[in-house]
């Protein structure tokens, strides 16, 4: 049992942190703007997974009082991180949309979407 818990823990936390790092790697090294935004959304995905993972309780149920089991409060997983993630997902989409629209405008202007071909983007 201990072993199984360990495996689940490692795979959930591990994949979430791996997503964070992979996304960050893309943001820092990739040259194409769309790749950078993909990196950002991978970072976001990792964060969202971390939020949900932290709220999970072994053998918990979803935080909904469905008819019939209205008294299972003790077994519910933590609802707060889930509520926060809802907000974070929507905000993440808004940021991605703005980033993509900026890319479209940059492409119109420079006819390219690569950082190394747009001088003013270097820093």
């Amino acid at each position, binding site marked *: 049992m201990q072993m*199984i818990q360990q*495996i*689940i823990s490692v*795979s*959930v936390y*591990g*994949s979430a942190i*791996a*997503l964070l790092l*992979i*996304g960050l*790697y*893309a943001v820092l090294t*990739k*040259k*194409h703007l*769309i*790749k950078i*935004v*993909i*990196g950002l*959304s*991978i970072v976001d*995905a990792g964060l*969202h*997974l971390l939020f*949900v*993972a932290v*709220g*999970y309780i072994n053998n*918990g*149920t*979803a*935080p*909904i009082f469905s008819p019939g089991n209205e008294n299972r409060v003790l077994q519910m*997983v933590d609802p707060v991180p*889930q509520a926060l*993630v*809802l907000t974070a*997902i*929507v905000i993440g*989409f808004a940021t*991605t*949309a703005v980033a*993509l629209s900026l*890319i*479209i405008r940059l*492409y119109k202007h*420079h*006819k*390219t*979407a*690569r950082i190394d*071909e747009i001088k003013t983007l270097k820093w």
Partner: protein
Amino acid sequence: MMIYIYTGAIVVLAFLLVFSALYAIKQKDLLYAVIATGVISLILSVVFLMLQAPDVALTEAAIGIALTTIAFVITIRNTSRYENDNTGINQTK
């Protein structure tokens, strides 16, 4: 028995997550990369369901899989499809 299936599924999904993330950043064809990001969202929403977060799973499914992917695809259609595309600079206009 259920617990083993559950554990196995989580492990497989975790590997798939990391694999699609790596694929998404390695793939030079941006359309495939974007689809890989969509797959990440898809797997995530399954994982959210397994972690007893149906609300989040539904949101991730609707926003992450459908809308974000489409927004990326539209952008790619309006810009360039390949990561190493230098055509813009060589074009005469």
